[in-house]
């Protein structure tokens, strides 16, 4: 299940199960969204992105869903593996903003139980 810890929300799932990580974004003008995976001691690594003219995009074992009405983004990971254990961040950007960087969400710690 999902719980809010002292620092990061944590989601614990059994290996092989599907997981869903949720994110609420803040800027209604944002038109580009990215999910990142951060393993311990490493930098954020790109997983999948979606533009605001789409509701869903699929990659290998991952799917991102975008609901602009409620400003909600989710990342679905199918058939989770031990290597999926990491902190996952959503990030948003307004493409018309030039080099104004990404705004990151709080992050969710995904733990894959063997």
């Amino acid at each position, binding site marked *: 299940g999902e719980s809010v810890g002292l*620092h*990061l929300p944590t989601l614990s799932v059994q290996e092989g199960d599907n997981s869903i990580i949720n994110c609420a974004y803040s800027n209604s003008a944002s038109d580009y969204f990215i999910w990142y995976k951060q393993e311990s001691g*490493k930098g954020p690594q790109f997983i999948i992105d979606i533009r605001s003219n789409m509701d869903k995009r699929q990659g290998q074992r991952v799917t991102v869903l975008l609901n602009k009405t409620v400003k909600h983004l989710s990342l679905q990971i199918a058939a989770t593996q031990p290597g999926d254990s990491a902190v996952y*961040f959503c990030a948003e950007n307004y493409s018309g903003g030039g*080099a104004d*960087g*990404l705004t990151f969400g709080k992050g969710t710690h995904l733990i894959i139980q063997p």
Partner: protein
Amino acid sequence: DTAVSQTPKYLVTQMGNDKSIKCEQNLGHDTMYWYKQDSKKFLKIMFSYNNKELIINETVPNRFSPKSPDKAHLNLHINSLELGDSAVYFCASSPSGTTYGYTFGSGTRLTVV
């Protein structure tokens, strides 16, 4: 060949010291960034440079001074280090001021004692 490389990976220093973190990217990107990740894992942008020109300077103490000698390098110099500066600092780059192809370095863990 590392796309965005930062040095050092770890930096432990005393309060009041001045230190620098270096970043280099070999992706041919025009834009580089510095982010700070605090103890709660929250990532926040500090600066961005596009073709050696400062674009973003978020509310960061002026003890932090980025320097971009060329578009492949963006260094971060910090004066008079304080305990609250302890964090992980990430460099990132992207092509032509967009966020497509955004790539992060592996981070520099700064500990001020």
